[in-house]
C-alpha cells in the first residue's frame, strides 16, 4: 500500500464513521413476519405434498400416452414411408368408446393445469420456484403428448392445449421470483382467458363430445 493509498483509506474510514449508524432492528416485527412466512410455507408444502400423487400420476399418464401414441403411429404408418406422417390428430376415425380414455386423460390433465395456474404466483412468491417450474415441466410434457393424441381432434381442445403449452413453458423456465417476469406471464395468461377456458373445458366432462355437447 502506498502512502497515498494509506491516506485515502484513513480519509475513507473517517467518512464512514460519520455515516449514520444502523438503526435498531424492529425485532418483534421481523419475528412476527418470519413466523407468518413459515406458516405460509408449511401450508404450501402440505399443498405440494397433496399434489405429489397427482404429479406421479401425471408421469404415469405421460408414459401411457407415449406408448399409446407410439403404437398408434406404428399401426397407422402410411404405405409409402417417404411421405410425411400425418399427425395422429388427423388419424383414422375412432369410436366414442375408443376416444373416452383420451378425453378422460385430457380432462384430468386440464384440471391439474388449472390448479397450477391458480396458485403458481403465490407459490413462486413464497420461494417455491423450483417446485413450480418442475411441476410445470411435467405438465408441459403431458400437454405436448396430448396435442399429438386423438384428444386434440376437438379444435377447441387443440387451441387450449396449444395456448397452455406456451404458458407452461414460460412457468417451467422461471428461475427466481422476479416480480416483473411473473406479471408478464400472468398478464398473458389473463389475456388468453386461460382459467376461464380451462374451467369451461373441465366443467363439460370427458363425455362431452360423446353426448354431442
Amino acid at each position: 500500500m502506498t502512502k497515498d493509498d494509506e491516506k485515502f483509506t484513513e480519509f475513507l474510514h473517517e467518512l464512514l464513521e460519520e455515516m449514520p449508524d444502523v438503526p435498531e432492528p424492529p425485532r418483534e416485527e421481523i419475528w412476527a413476519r418470519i413466523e407468518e412466512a413459515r406458516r405460509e410455507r408449511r401450508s404450501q408444502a402440505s399443498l405440494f405434498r397433496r399434489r405429489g400423487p397427482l404429479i406421479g400420476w401425471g408421469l404415469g399418464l405421460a408414459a401411457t400416452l407415449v406408448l399409446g401414441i407410439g403404437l398408434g403411429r406404428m399401426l397407422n404408418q402410411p404405405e409409402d414411408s417417404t411421405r410425411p406422417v400425418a399427425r395422429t390428430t388427423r388419424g383414422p376415425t375412432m369410436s366414442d368408446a375408443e376416444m373416452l380414455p383420451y378425453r378422460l386423460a385430457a380432462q384430468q390433465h386440464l384440471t391439474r393445469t388449472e390448479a397450477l395456474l391458480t396458485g403458481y404466483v403465490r407459490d413462486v412468491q413464497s420461494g417455491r420456484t423450483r417446485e413450480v417450474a418442475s411441476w410445470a415441466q411435467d405438465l408441459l410434457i403431458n400437454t405436448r403428448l396430448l396435442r399429438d393424441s386423438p384428444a386434440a381432434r376437438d379444435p377447441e381442445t387443440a387451441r387450449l392445449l396449444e395456448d397452455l403449452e406456451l404458458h407452461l413453458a414460460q412457468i417451467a423456465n422461471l428461475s427466481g421470483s422476479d416480480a416483473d417476469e411473473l406479471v408478464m406471464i400472468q398478464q398473458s395468461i389473463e389475456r388468453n382467458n386461460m382459467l376461464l377456458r380451462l374451467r369451461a373445458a373441465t366443467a363439460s366432462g370427458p363425455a362431452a363430445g360423446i353426448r354431442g355437447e
Partner: protein
Amino acid sequence: MSTGPGLDEKLLIRRVLAGDASAERELYDQHVDRVYRLCYRMANGDADLAQDFTQESFVRAFDRLGDFRGEAALSTWLHSIAVSVALNGMRNVKRHRERETELDGVREMGSATRHAEPDLKQRLRGAIEALPERYKVVFVMYDVEGYTHEEIGRVLDMPAGTSKARLSRARAKLREALAEFAGEWAT
C-alpha cells in the same frame, strides 16, 4: 465469529431441529442484530429492504438448519445466507429501478432540471452502491462492519487472500469515484 459451533450452540440447534419453538426464538435473538446490520448495509441503508432480507434469511435458515453440518459457526452460516439473500434481493431491486428510471426518463424528457452537485458523503454513498457486488460485499463487511478477512473468507467461501484483493479493488474504485475530492485526503 468462531470457526465451529460451541456446545451451547449445538444444543440450541438440536432443540430447534426437535421443534422447540422457544429455541427458535433464542436462535433468532442471538443473531438478528448482526444479520440485520449486514442486510441494512447491503441494502444501502434501506430499512424496509433490510427487514425483508432479514426475514427471508431466517426463514431459509430455519428451513435448512437440518443441512447445517457444523463445520463453521452458526453465525458464519447465517451470514452467508444473509449475504446471498441480500445480493439476490438487490439484483431484483436494481432491475426494477432500472425499468422505473427508463420510464421516468421518458416522462421527464424536456423538463429535466440539473440537480445540485451531491456533496462528498452523498458521492461516497453512491460510489459504494455502484460497486460491483463482489467488491461491495467485501468492502461492507470489512471496512463498514468490521469483519476480518478470515471471517469474510468463511462466509463467502473463498480464501482470505481473495477477500484482501477484493477490498483493495473496492477501495481503488471508490478512490476513482471520489477523484474530484482528492484535495481533501491528499492534504
